[in-house]
């Protein structure tokens, strides 16, 4: 029980990782060929109450199951949000258990990779609280916020460091400002400190430097600095980001800079309706031992701070 409590307090999500002794292509086909899928999805104990799958991005699925001995039913339905052939697919997931909705608004990400024993299947089933939270927080604001979408991007689009796939944090938020109004919130120290670090210096020119110092919700203090690598006001800001500290015992500073460097890309796009969409892409996190917690920490941190950014920019009447 305590273990489940720790899980739910770490993140309201279920992660199942399994290795099956079959080649990736056959595993992938079993999931994505609807005829094959319908054969195995119910398993030996359950029966199908109808399985449909339109396997393309945006296509709908509906997978119904029933346990004959007690009549319990479970129906999952939603859309294929993303499909990367032989790598992963992502489903929006609503479910109906015994005729009643069972926690709507989840996302299921399935990723596949070849390992020496066969194929590793990673299933991440997470509750998307942000949409709910948005509704909750925006009550008093009546702002143009539509959604805060959070994606943990596990794809291998970026093949860095000898083809080792890296992963990225992608966040999007809509704020009720024009791009020109938003821009200072990303580039002026006295604005940045209202949603992210307690102390900030930033020279928003290509080749300029920044330095942030802040304390996380868990009490840990962080100092990060680096170069601003590209600036196109008020649409684009790129900065390098070193997610770890240099440890002289591990090697030279130069080696560390090369190995640890990740990139933060800010993009601002106006919607044409008085608001703009701010995208944060933090790319270049490597896979490896001990790196998962760093990636997770950054994901959680950015979610928190981008939420803050939305709050301070949406409630700007209160601040001024």
């Amino acid at each position, binding site marked *: 029980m305590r273990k489940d409590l720790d899980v739910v307090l770490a993140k309201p999500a279920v992660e199942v990782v399994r290795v099956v002794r079959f080649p990736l292509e*056959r595993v992938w086909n079993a999931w994505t060929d609807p005829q094959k899928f319908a054969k195995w*999805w119910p*398993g030996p*104990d359950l029966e199908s109450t109808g399985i449909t799958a339109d396997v393309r991005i945006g296509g709908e699925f509906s997978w119904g199951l029933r346990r004959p001995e007690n009549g319990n039913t479970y129906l999952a339905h939603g859309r294929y949000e993303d499909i990367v052939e032989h790598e992963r697919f992502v489903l929006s997931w609503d479910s109906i258990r015994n005729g009643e909705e069972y*926690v709507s608004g989840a996302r299921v990400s399935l990723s596949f990779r070849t390992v020496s024993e066969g194929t590793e*299947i990673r299933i991440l089933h997470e*509750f998307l*609280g942000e949409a*709910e939270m948005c509704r909750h927080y925006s009550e008093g604001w009546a702002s143009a916020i539509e959604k805060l979408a959070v994606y943990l991007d596990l794809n291998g689009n970026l093949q860095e460091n000898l083809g080792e796939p890296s992963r990225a944090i992608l966040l999007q938020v809509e704020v009720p400002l024009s791009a020109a109004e938003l821009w200072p919130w990303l580039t002026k120290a006295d604005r940045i400190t209202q949603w992210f670090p307690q102390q900030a210096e930033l020279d928003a020119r290509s080749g300029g430097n920044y330095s942030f110092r802040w304390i996380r919700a868990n009490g840990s203090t962080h100092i990060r600095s680096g170069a601003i690598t590209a600036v196109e006001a008020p649409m684009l800001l790129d900065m390098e980001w070193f997610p770890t500290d240099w440890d002289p015992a591990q090697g030279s500073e130069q080696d560390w800079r090369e190995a640890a460097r990740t990139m933060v890309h800010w993009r601002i796009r106006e919607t044409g309706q008085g608001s703009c969409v701010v995208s944060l892409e933090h790319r270049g996190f490597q896979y490896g031992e001990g790196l998962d917690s760093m990636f997770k920490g950054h994901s959680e941190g950015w979610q928190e701070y981008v939420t803050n950014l939305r709050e301070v920019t949406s409630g700007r009447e209160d601040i001024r």
Partner: protein
Amino acid sequence: MVKYSEQELSRTFAALSDPTRRGILRQLADGSTTVSELAGPYSMSLPAVSKHLRVLEEAGLVSRDKQGREYHCRLLAGPLREAMEWIAFYRGFWNARIDSLEDFLASEEVEHDGKGGKQ
């Protein structure tokens, strides 16, 4: 066992979707504490922590009683148990699905071998 409605369970998960609020619940799981104690590890004002506590309270996860000058907070187990049940349900669900997938892939092999034998 009390059966929580889907709406209440969704509200629990919405409350749990914020890392600060999960941190507060973790502190509460380790013993009941006052608002100022809860605010301690966060670089956050007391009103900001109170706002999070209000969300937790509305979700039925936390109760607050005024004792003297301070509010004392307590973790309420009911909704958390539902959330844990959700986790346990899906852990079992996904493992059972993969078991079934393995059986299917193995049977495909037998079928394939069978066909191969006839050719």
